[in-house]
């Protein structure tokens, strides 16, 4: 029956369209389902997971001491050359020469947050910070020195 099929087709087609319209109407009327985060407004409540890879930082304790020995493992592990370790020789009180870092230069603009440097570090001197708002007007600001000025190595870290 041609006519019967014709009418049947029309009804099944309209039904399938109405099912979809019911779904969108549901969301139109249920505003609680909205999942948008209003980002710059929710800065205070925004919590990033502790493993989030934002940028490489070097934690210092309250005496301005870090754990970096200047072994350059991170520099070797980095695929992009975004870390450069500049070492110097400290004279310890008993007159021995000891290798230490002068500067640990970190190029944020080259970094891909692959976490390989953090993995490679034998003394847990560097870690990933949970920051992500990295935009600056001058790209020189993206080249960072990770160790604080005047900082020295923590006692007992070899």
């Amino acid at each position: 029956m041609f006519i019967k099929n014709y009418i049947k087709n029309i009804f099944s087609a309209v039904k399938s369209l109405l099912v979809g319209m019911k779904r969108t109407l549901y969301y139109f009327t249920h505003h609680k389902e909205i999942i948008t985060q209003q980002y710059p407004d929710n800065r205070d409540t925004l919590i990033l997971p502790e493993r989030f890879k934002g940028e490489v930082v070097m934690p210092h304790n309250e005496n301005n001491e870090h754990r970096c020995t200047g072994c350059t493992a991170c520099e070797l592990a980095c695929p992009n050359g975004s870390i450069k370790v500049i070492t110097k020789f400290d004279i310890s009180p008993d007159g021995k020469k000891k290798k230490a870092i002068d500067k640990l230069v970190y190029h944020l603009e080259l970094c891909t947050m692959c976490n390989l440097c953090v993995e490679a570090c034998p003394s847990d001197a560097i870690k990933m910070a949970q920051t992500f708002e990295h935009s600056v007007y001058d790209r020189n600001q993206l080249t960072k020195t990770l160790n604080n000025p005047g900082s020295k190595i923590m006692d007992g870290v070899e």
Partner: protein
Amino acid sequence: MWSFSNIANLVHEVLAEHFNPAITLAIEMVIAGVSVIGLFAILGLVLVIMERKVSAWMQIRLGPNRVGPKGMLQSLADTLKLIVKEGMTPNGADKLLFNLAPFIAMIVAMLLMAPIAFAKDLQMWDLNIGILYVSALSSVTVISILMAGWSSNNKFSLLGAMRSGAQIVSYELSAGLSALAIVVLTGSLQISEIITSQANGWWIFKGHIPAIIAFVTFIIAVTAETNRAPFDLAEAESELTAGFHTEYSGMKFALFFLAEYVNVFIMCSIAATLFFGGWMPLHIGNWHKFNHVMDFIPSSIWFFGKTFFLIFVIMWFRWTFPRLRIDQLLDLEWKYLLPITMFNLLLVTAVAILGWHF
């Protein structure tokens, strides 16, 4: 109760006191023109923000919420942006037609506003062939689209324009035939008469199933005629980037944009007039108390409420359905809508002759 005819008469009397009849007429025409342009701008702003909010809520988003209270002034900011943007004309384009096309789209939309009854006694031109006038003029829109597509010197625009040509010409048929169903029931093409014929109930209730079928086909045809999704093949952003207005920018683009929304408004108001009684409040047969309560709601609210509900339905289509393919679009018209509307017209004629409607 105040009414628009009182205001109009008041204005006319005041003007007639001070000026001779020719100048009075001229001033009245200017007032009408200014109010149409004002309505045009307000409609554009309101419909754009409405579309953006409707789409956002259907897509589990918030939508614009920064400019003004709850983002309600967003479209104003958009307009400002479009005004200050450069309106470029591409190399190798037919400059005259390219720059003329958006204005034709606008002018057609403006002319279409003439016979619409916005409220009781608020109608610019109650001509006796109102429906015919609307359906004749609305097909002129295709000329502006064809002009824009052809003169842009862009293959995407040309394809979009050609699609639009095929589409509007074919859907004009079923839109006209669906409107005819109500004309048959009313026995008049005049908008005011169609509205007064629904004083005791709207045609969608009085006309039984044939009126409902006519309403559904009319809404589908109107969606296609105004190039709205799922029939937006002339634009088809995922296929033809932006179709016929790919090369337009700045205010010229804004005019196309505005004309599209105003066309949607006009077509929805025609649908509201034909099937939901225009500004006529909801009256049910002999329930005089109920009818009396309904009369207290101003007629303009009835009109805009119905129209905006229909606009919402059309937006609802857009944000739910995928787009049709060009051959399926023509299949839908020639194999489904046209036979159905023609059969429905016979049905309506039978109903009208036998007096089966209320």
